[in-house]
C-alpha cells in the first residue's frame, strides 16, 4: 500500500506531480485555458496531464461528486494517471475530511498492481502526500478507511498469487501470519479433517499433491455474542478435475480462491480497526487437480453434515467445499449470520456480467443489508432467486442430492445457491457469487487483475449492522 501522509503544504523535495481534483465545471483559473483547449470539463475519470516549468500538474475529473465513492474514483484516476512517478501529491485542500480520506483511499486502491514476482520492477507509485487544511481532522477517518483499504489489498495480493506459490499449505501459512494483528488462526490439516468427516472438502482436494486445509480465523471483538461468520471458497487452482476445463484461459483459475481471500481481507480490516464485533472466517482451501486419486463424476460423497451428494461434474467443486465449511461454521460456532463468498459459477457472469455479484440467501433483512452496503462501498450486488424448481433439479436417484444439474442452458448459479442452502440450516445466510467481479478486465494491459471484491463489503456490513452489543 502507498505510504500516505497528510500535510498542509507541498513538500519541497521531489513532491512528484500535483493532482488536483476538479469538480465538473469548476476549473481552477490558472488552468482554465489549457483545460478549455483540451476540452477538459471535469468529467469523472478523465485526467489532464499538464507538464510545466513549475512542476507537473494533473487535473483529475471528479464529476459531480455526491458520495465518498465518487471521490474515491477520482483518487483512483489520479493514481492511475501518474505514470512513472514514485510520489504523488493530491490536493484536497478545501474539501471535507471525509472527501480527502476517500481520495486517499481511492489512490491507494488505484495504485495497486500485482507483480511481486517480476525481477525487474519499474518505478512505481509508492508514496502519497495529501494536502489538507487540517491533518489532525483527517487522521481519525483515515485510520478507519485505511483498515478497509489494507483488507482489500490483502485480498488482492492473495488472489494475484500464482498457484505454485499459493498452495493450500502456503495459503494457510499466509493466514497464520494474521495472528500478529490479534486474529486467532487455527488450521486443520488432512488428519483432523478426516477425523471430523469433511468428506466433500477431502474429495475435492484428493487429486492434488497438495493436501487441503481448513483455516479458521477468529476475531474476538469486545463483547460477548455469537460471531458473524464469513465463508470463502479457497480453490487455489481449479483445473476442473476430471471434468477438465478447456486450456484457453485456464491460467485465470489461480483466482478461484478470491472468496477466501476476500474473507481474510475483511478479517484483517476488522482487526486493524479493532472492531468490537466478534467475527469468524472459515476458509476451505484445496486444489482441484487431476490425479489417480481424483474424485470422479458419479461418485457419492458423504459430507460433513452426513448428507450424501452425487457428484455430477468435478468442476462444480466450490459448492462442495463450502457445504462442509457451512456445516462446520454453523454447528461449531452457532454464528448470528453466515455470509459466503465464492467465484462459484460461469452462470452468474452470463446473468450479471462483470459489474455486479449475484446475491442469494434465506434472510430478507440480511440480503437487504448486504445490497445496501454493497452500493455504498462500490461493490454492488444484485439479488437472484432460489426457486422451488432449482432445488427440484438437484434431486438425485442415488444420494440425498445432486451437486449440480446437467444439460444445456442451466441456471447453475441458482442451482449452486439451492445446493448451499441445504447446508446453511436455520442460520441467516447470504451467498455472494463473485465469479464476475473478483477480477477486472484491464484491457490491453494484460490479464484480468484481482479486485478484492467483498473484503470492504463485509467490513462495512459488520460496522453498520453487527457492532451494536445490544442488538444481536
Amino acid at each position, binding site marked *: 500500500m502507498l505510504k500516505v501522509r497528510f500535510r498542509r503544504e507541498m513538500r519541497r523535495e521531489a513532491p512528484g506531480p500535483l493532482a488536483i481534483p476538479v469538480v465538473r465545471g469548476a476549473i481552477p483559473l490558472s488552468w482554465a485555458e489549457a483545460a478549455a483547449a483540451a476540452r477538459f470539463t471535469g468529467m469523472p475519470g478523465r485526467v489532464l496531464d499538464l507538464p510545466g516549468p513549475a512542476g507537473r500538474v494533473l487535473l483529475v475529473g471528479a464529476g459531480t461528486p455526491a458520495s465518498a465513492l465518487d471521490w474515491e474514483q477520482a483518487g483512483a484516476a489520479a493514481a492511475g494517471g501518474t505514470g512513472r512517478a514514485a510520489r504523488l501529491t493530491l490536493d484536497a485542500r478545501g474539501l471535507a475530511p471525509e472527501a480527502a480520506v476517500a481520495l486517499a483511499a481511492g489512490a491507494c486502491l488505484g495504485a495497486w498492481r500485482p507483480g511481486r514476482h517480476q525481477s525487474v520492477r519499474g518505478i512505481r507509485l509508492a508514496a502519497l502526500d495529501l494536502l489538507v487544511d487540517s491533518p489532525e481532522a483527517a487522521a481519525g477517518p483515515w485510520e478507519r478507511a485505511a483498515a478497509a483499504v489494507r483488507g482489500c489489498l490483502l485480498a488482492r495480493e492473495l488472489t494475484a498469487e500464482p498457484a505454485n506459490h499459493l498452495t493450500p499449505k502456503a495459503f494457510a501459512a499466509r493466514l497464520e501470519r494474521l495472528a500478529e494483528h490479534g486474529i486467532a488462526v487455527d488450521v486443520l490439516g488432512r488428519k483432523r479433517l478426516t477425523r471430523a468427516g469433511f468428506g466433500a472438502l477431502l474429495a475435492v482436494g484428493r487429486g492434488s499433491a497438495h493436501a487441503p486445509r481448513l483455516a479458521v480465523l477468529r476475531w474476538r471483538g469486545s463483547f460477548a455474542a455469537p460471531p458473524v461468520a464469513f465463508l470463502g471458497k479457497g480453490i487455489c487452482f481449479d483445473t476442473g478435475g476430471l471434468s477438465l476445463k478447456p486450456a484457453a484461459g485456464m491460467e485465470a483459475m489461480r483466482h478461484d480462491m478470491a472468496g477466501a481471500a476476500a474473507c481474510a481481507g475483511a478479517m484483517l480490516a476488522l482487526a486493524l480497526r479493532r472492531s468490537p464485533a466478534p467475527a469468524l472466517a472459515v476458509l476451505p482451501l484445496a486444489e482441484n487437480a487431476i490425479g489417480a486419486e481424483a474424485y470422479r463424476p458419479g461418485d457419492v460423497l458423504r459430507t460433513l453434515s452426513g448428507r450424501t451428494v452425487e457428484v455430477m461434474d468435478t468442476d462444480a467443486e466450490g459448492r462442495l467445499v463450502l457445504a462442509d465449511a457451512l456445516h462446520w461454521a454453523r454447528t461449531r460456532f452457532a454464528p448470528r449470520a453466515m455470509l459466503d463468498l465464492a467465484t462459484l459459477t460461469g452462470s452468474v457472469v452470463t446473468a450479471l*456480467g462483470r459489474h455486479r455479484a449475484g446475491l442469494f440467501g434465506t434472510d430478507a433483512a440480511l440480503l437487504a443489508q448486504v445490497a445496501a452496503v454493497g452500493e455504498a462501498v462500490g461493490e454492488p450486488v*444484485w439479488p437472484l432467486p432460489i426457486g422451488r424448481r432449482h432445488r427440484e433439479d438437484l434431486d438425485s436417484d442415488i444420494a440425498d442430492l445432486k451437486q449440480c444439474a446437467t444439460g444445456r442452458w442451466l441456471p447453475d448459479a441458482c442451482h449452486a445457491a439451492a445446493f448451499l442452502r441445504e447446508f446453511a440450516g436455520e442460520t441467516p445466510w447470504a451467498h455472494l457469487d463473485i465469479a464476475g467481479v473478483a477480477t477486472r478486465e484491464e484491457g490491453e494491459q494484460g490479464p484480468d487483475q484481482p479486485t478484492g471484491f467483498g473484503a470492504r463489503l463485509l467490513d462495512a456490513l459488520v460496522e453498520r449492522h453487527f457492532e451494536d452489543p445490544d442488538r444481536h
Partner: protein
Amino acid sequence: MPDIAFVKPALPRSGALVLPLPEAAEGAEPASTLRQALEEATGGALARALEAAAFKGRKGQSCTLWAPGAGLSKIVAIGLGKPDELTPEAAEAAGGAIAPMIAQEREAMVAAEGMAPELGAALALGLTLRGYRFDRYRTQEKEEDRPRLERVAIATADTAAAKAAWAPMRAVADGVALARDLVSEPPNVLGPEEMAERCRGLEKLGIEVEVLGPKEMKKLGFGALLGVAQGSAREPRLVVMQWLGASGGKGKRAGGAKPVAFIGKGVTFDTGGISIKPAQGMEEMKFDMAGAGAVIGLMAALAGRKARLDAVGVVGLVENMPSGTAQRPGDVVKTYSGQTVEVINTDAEGRLVLADALWYCQERFQPRFMVDLATLTGAIIISLGHEHAGLFSNDDELAQRIMAAGKAVSEPCWRMPMGEAYDKQLKSDIADMKNVGGRPGGSITAAHFIQRFVDTRRGHMPWAHLDIAGTAWASKDLPTVPKGATGFGVRLLDRLVAEHYEG
C-alpha cells in the same frame, strides 16, 4: 375446451363427481348437503374410502372411487389444504389438478359449494387452463386416448356471482389458449403472413387490425426489421391491433386518453440466420414468436372481456433464415429511429425487430407505457431458469406493478439490473451500437439495446421488457399449464391492466 356451467348443488345422475375437500380440523364442521346426499346414495362409500386412503384434505392428496353407485362413473376427492390458505391461486391449482383426472369423462361436476363463488370460478379457470390440448395434427390417435370432456358443472351456492366472476376469466382463458395455439403451430404452417391472418381473426371481437407489408415498412424505413427478414422467402409483417374500450366499446378513442401499448417479438422461426444455431434443439425455435403470441392473446382477452381502456398491440413478424439474400454479420442497418446498428450476430435478431416495432408504436400512439415481450436470450435461462421471466424496466412503479401482477397469476417475474456499465458493452467502432454486448450480462445488454429505442424526447416513457425465453415453453406439466406452450404473459398483462389502468 369443455363448457363450464355453474349450477346449484344437487347430486348428478351420471358422469364424474369431484369433491375438493379442505384439510379439516379435528371434529370438523358438518359436511355439505351435496356430500351428505352422496354418502346416502352410496351407502357411505366415500367416507369409508377416504378413511382407508388416509385422505386428510392436504394439498396434493387425492382419492378416486370407481363406479361408486348412484349412476356415477367415479368420485374423485382432492385435497385443498388448509381453509385459510385457499387463495385464488390455490383454487386455480386445485382446478388444474382436477383436469387430468376427469379428462376421460364426458361430463363432470365439481362440488365447489363450500368455496366462495369467486374461488369456484378460479377453480374453473385452473381446470380450463390445465385442460388445454393442442392436437390439431394428431390423426391416428386412438379413441380411448383422446380426452372426451365436454361439460363441467361447478356446483356453487351463488351461481350468479360465480358466473359474473367467470365471464372475464373465460375471456382470459381464451386469450391464453390462442397464444398457446400460435406458439404450438409448426413453423411451416405459421409464417409471418399466416400469423398476420390470425390477427385479422380478432376483428370479430371488435379489434381494429392493420397489417403492414414489406413495401410499407420499406417506405417507413424499418431497416432493422427488414434486415432480419431479408434472408427468408416469406415476407415480413407488422401488425397493429387496437382495442378501443375506454369509450365503452363504441370503437372511438376516448378524448385525449393515451392507450397502453404491448409489443411482441414474432420470429416465426429462428434458424439464427448466417450465425446459424446448432442443429440439436433447433425445432424448438418455432416458439420464438411467443412474445407476439402473448400480445395477440392479450388483445383477444382484453376485447373478450370488454376491458374499459384503449390498448394497442404491435407485433413484428419475420422469419430468420440463412440464404443468399440473408443479412450478414458485419452489416450495418439503419433503424426506423434513425440510429444505426452494426449486426455482429444475426442470431440476436429479436431486438432488431423490436427496435423498429417499439419506435413505430411510440411515433404513432405516444402510449402511457410500453411493455414488450420476447423470447429474447438464452442468457435469461442461464440467469433465472424456467420459473421466472426476466423483467427489465426504466420505471420502478411499472416494474413493481408487473411483479405483483405476475405473482398473483402464477406468472412470476424477477427484476434484473440495468446500468450504464452494461450499456457501454454495446459500443460499436463503426455504428451507433452493436446488436450484442458479449456473453457477460447477455440479457441485460439485450435489454439496453431495446431501451435505446424507447423515445424519451417527449419526456419519460415508462417501459418494461419481459424476457420470456425461459418461461414461454414448459418442459413438464405445471399446475395450470400442460407441458408445451405456456401462453406466458397473457394473464400477467391482463391482470396488470385490470388492476391499474381501467376505469
